């Protein structure tokens, strides 16, 4: 349809071809859609898109026509080829996103009409959405919302071309604000399905840092340099003391050379608890960051198994499937006295075994200590007091160790991190014939005063030991606590000597920064818990808390429709809201014209008050006098200089008593 330009002052003249400012908006919307992908997509892809975007922006800036069609066709073929080469396919998530990104940039180079603008904005929104396939953090969500805002402003500009930048931003911002209540209702009540519809693609989650299934000297120290969050814990009631927070992870029983590893023997797992459950002493919920392994962390010892988990023979909580999504589970824990008293001989043999050769000094030392001690308990006490009495240093930067690492550490360097102490301790125990093994996991954690969550970071990674006593079974011994009690009581930052390289998040120098970090972290956690982690279970919990029992999809749909209708009604009232004319003169005059209209003497649109008055007077002689008076008062009040109040009162009185 073609539009005509007319002399009416206010006539806008929309046309199908986009104007230069409208194109500028579209370029901005495309650029905003790429922003959240920076750092997520391969560099070649982003550079190709930015080049195409830059080309269009340059041509736009110089007021030149778009690139020729043959060039765009050639570039499209090239884009398809590049995706095929890079991903070996064009279907699937990653190549799909790459194609959307490339074709958005190409489409921008041939956008001319209003219809193109709509296609382009849809593409930009789709590309923005695609960000969430790789990252879902709060910052990403904010960037995506910003991109949606600019896209909507571009649509505003394309629909109504004559408005300024500020106007378009305000209007689209208002649309977004009005969308938020509907979004919240939908988000909370839209029924969630617990399992994916057709499974995650294999590339959904790449490897991440965390504990591994084996430990060599230095590996935990390495991990301690990272302030990435491993998991968060929230206790239902009282939180246990800091020094009791031993989050059990992989248990290492096998020693090969200097490397401790998980034993295949203890990997068989129980689907039900291998001991009688006791009253829980700690109830808590853990939100585990994905780490790609099937380990779950819990305090000793779990009294119930969370859904989809088992317990290994060395009492580690295991997920049936690798944790590739952020996962939330509730656990109850309590000590189990005498656990492992009836351990099978095979496990005891394995936890006493040492390689045939190596570390001769340590072996001799262990035999000497064993000869002096009557019981395994006495032996443990003498080893720990040895650690305490000798000049051992707790450090993140121990010297490198050779083949007989235990010997060198115990008798030469005497500088080490928790894994050194745990390894040396277990070695000495085994050399003396006492079953012992290394337990890795996390110790402690930092309580966020803002939301009460305990945040456990990779820097809280720890290694300790377990010793088997014939009368009481497996008992936890933490040699690090003997050397550096503050590590266990107050955390890593307090235990290390000054000047050691600490992860940024652990530095205590800036109190204000710390307070800020607590707040940010609480916010990010709330976002993780309630936005990213809002799943079928959470939804049921929330509904139960709001008084809806057994929320199934029918109940949810009922409430969804009900609240949606309520929202719509409120909005419709807003849409119909009127502002009555404020001018009191006009209100009084309208009162008169309404009465006359009922008698078939409505004021015509082109009729001024005087002409109208004359017409009324001619048609109804009986009203002539009153009408003339009213019209004179009205004209003087509304159009004359400085109207006064007595005249207005008089006009109102006349209007009230006017009876045609």
């Amino acid at each position, binding site marked *: *349809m*073609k*539009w*005509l330009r*007319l002399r*009416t002052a*206010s006539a*806008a*003249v*929309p046309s199908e071809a986009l104007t230069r400012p409208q194109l500028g908006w579209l370029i901005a919307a495309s650029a905003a859609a790429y922003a959240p992908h920076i750092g997520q997509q391969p560099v070649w892809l982003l550079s190709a898109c930015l080049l195409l975007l830059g080309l269009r922006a340059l041509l736009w800036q110089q007021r030149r026509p778009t690139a020729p069609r043959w060039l765009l066709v050639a570039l499209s073929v090239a884009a398809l080829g590049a995706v095929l080469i890079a991903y070996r396919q064009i279907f699937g998530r990653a190549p799909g996103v790459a194609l959307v990104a490339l074709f958005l940039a190409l489409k921008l180079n041939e956008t001319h009409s209003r219809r193109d603008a*709509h296609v382009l904005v*849809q593409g930009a*929104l789709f590309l*923005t*959405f695609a960000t*969430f*396939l790789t990252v*879902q953090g709060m910052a990403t*969500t904010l960037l*995506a919302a910003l991109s*949606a805002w600019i896209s909507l402003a571009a*649509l*505003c500009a*394309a*629909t*109504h071309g*004559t408005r300024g930048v500020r106007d378009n931003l305000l*209007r*689209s911002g208002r*649309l*977004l604000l*009005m*969308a*938020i*209540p*509907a*979004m919240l209702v*939908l*988000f909370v009540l*839209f029924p969630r399905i617990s399992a*994916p*519809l*057709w499974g*995650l693609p294999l590339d*959904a989650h790449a490897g991440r840092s965390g504990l591994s299934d084996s430990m060599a000297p230095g590996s935990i120290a390495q991990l301690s340099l990272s302030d990435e969050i491993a998991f968060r814990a929230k206790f239902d009631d009282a939180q246990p003391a800091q020094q009791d927070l031993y989050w059990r992870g992989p248990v290492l029983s096998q020693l090969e050379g200097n490397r401790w590893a998980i034993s295949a023997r203890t990997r068989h797992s129980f689907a039900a608890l291998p001991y009688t459950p006791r009253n829980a002493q700690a109830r808590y919920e853990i939100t585990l960051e994905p780490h790609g392994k099937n380990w779950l962390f819990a305090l000793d010892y779990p009294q119930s198994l969370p859904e989809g988990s088992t317990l290994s023979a060395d009492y580690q909580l295991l997920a049936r499937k690798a944790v590739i*999504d952020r996962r939330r589970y509730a656990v109850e824990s309590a000590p189990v006295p005498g656990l492992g008293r009836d351990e099978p001989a095979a496990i005891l043999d394995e936890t006493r075994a040492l390689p045939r050769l190596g570390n001769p000094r340590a072996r001799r030392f262990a035999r000497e200590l064993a000869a002096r001690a009557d019981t395994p308990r006495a032996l443990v006490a003498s080893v720990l007091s040895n650690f305490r009495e000798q000049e051992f240093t707790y450090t993140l930067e121990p010297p490198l160790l050779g083949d007989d690492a235990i010997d060198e550490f115990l008798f030469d360097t005497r500088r080490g991190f928790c894994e050194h102490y745990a390894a040396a301790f277990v070695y000495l125990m085994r050399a003396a014939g006492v079953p012992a093994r290394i337990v890795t996991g996390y110790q402690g954690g930092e309580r966020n005063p803002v939301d009460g969550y305990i945040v456990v970071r990779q820097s809280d990674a720890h290694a300790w030991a377990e010793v088997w006593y014939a009368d009481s079974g497996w008992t936890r011994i933490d040699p690090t606590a003997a050397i550096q009690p503050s590590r266990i009581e107050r955390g890593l930052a307090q235990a290390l000597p000054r000047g050691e390289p600490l992860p940024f998040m652990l530095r205590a120098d800036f109190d204000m920064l710390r307070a800020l970090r607590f707040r940010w972290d609480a916010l990010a956690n709330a976002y993780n818990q309630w*936005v*990213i982690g809002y*799943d079928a279970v959470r939804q049921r919990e929330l509904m139960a808390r709001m008084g809806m029992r057994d929320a199934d999809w029918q109940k949810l749909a009922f409430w969804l429709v009900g609240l949606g209708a309520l929202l719509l009604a409120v*909005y*419709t009232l*807003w*849409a*119909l809201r*009127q*502002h009555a004319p404020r001018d009191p003169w006009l209100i009084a005059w309208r009162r008169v014209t309404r009465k006359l209209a009922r008698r078939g003497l*409505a004021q*015509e*649109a*082109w009729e001024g008050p005087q002409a109208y008055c004359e017409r009324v007077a001619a048609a109804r002689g009986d009203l002539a006098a009153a009408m003339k008076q009213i019209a004179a008062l009205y004209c003087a009040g509304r159009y004359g200089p400085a109207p006064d109040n007595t005249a207005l009162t008089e006009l109102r009185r006349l209007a009230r008593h006017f009876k045609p």
Partner: protein
Amino acid sequence: MRARFERWLFRLSKDEAAPVRLNYRRVFVLPTRSGLFWAVGVLVMLVGAINYNLGAAYIFVFLLAGVGNAAILHTFRNLVDLEVSALYNEPVFAGQLAQVRVSLHNPRKDARHGIRLSLEGSQAVAADVPGGESCTVSLPVPARQRGWLVPNRITLETHFPIGLIRAWSYAHPRNLRVLVYPQPEQPPQALPAEQPAGEAGGHARSARAGDDFAGLRPWRRGDTPRQMAWKAVARGSNPVSKLFESSGTARLWLSWAELPGRLDTEARLSRLTRWCLDAHASGREFGLTLPDLEIEAGSGAQHLEHCLRALALHGLEGEA
């Protein structure tokens, strides 16, 4: 059947009391093609969010759904409670483009944007109406036939603010019409010969103006500049016109009956229209006789208008 359904659904009626307020019952809302495209896009993204169980993606998808919902209300609000009335329109000759003028009044405080108006068979015109104000829109309509041109109805439509939704309404306010004069004959025929006074019976009493000066009277609308007493005006008095007395000189009678018999009604009207215009242009007095109407000789714009109106409405019953 369909027409009746439409009349019921869209509450169509002719000559509604002006101003016609587009209340909520007569404003209709449906998505445009882009709006449907948007809805499909949101659904596809929703499936993605469900499949990958992405909380943040749910937020994004529901935000876009909410925007679509808000757009419905914004577009609806942009049109609802607008007041439409028809303005007086200048008559045109058949074959010309008539301008149907419509006044839009916005009783609300905030402005309305991008209201498109169109008449059946005409091009659309867009207008913005500032808050609490009125604006005038001229809709071009080809005038094909003499008589009253009454457009079927005005379609008022808006896609504002983001083009996903179309809100529209129909209105036919009172006096939505244009007078169309007959098309002047082409090529023009020479005017008929003037008749001396006293001839043709009753025509003589129409003598009101002539060549002999008979005095002055206050100027009236329709008096030609030639009649103005410029000397008197120059002296500073109110505008006055010279009054002439006819002294039996010739005058022009444009008569239906004297036209050649082979001409049909429209051709006759067409020729008479041409003659009226020519006679007026040459500043002469002329009278007009039609089968059922006789207009006394006269001159001036008002006289011409009177004659043309009679020609336009000749034979059309019930119209004045």
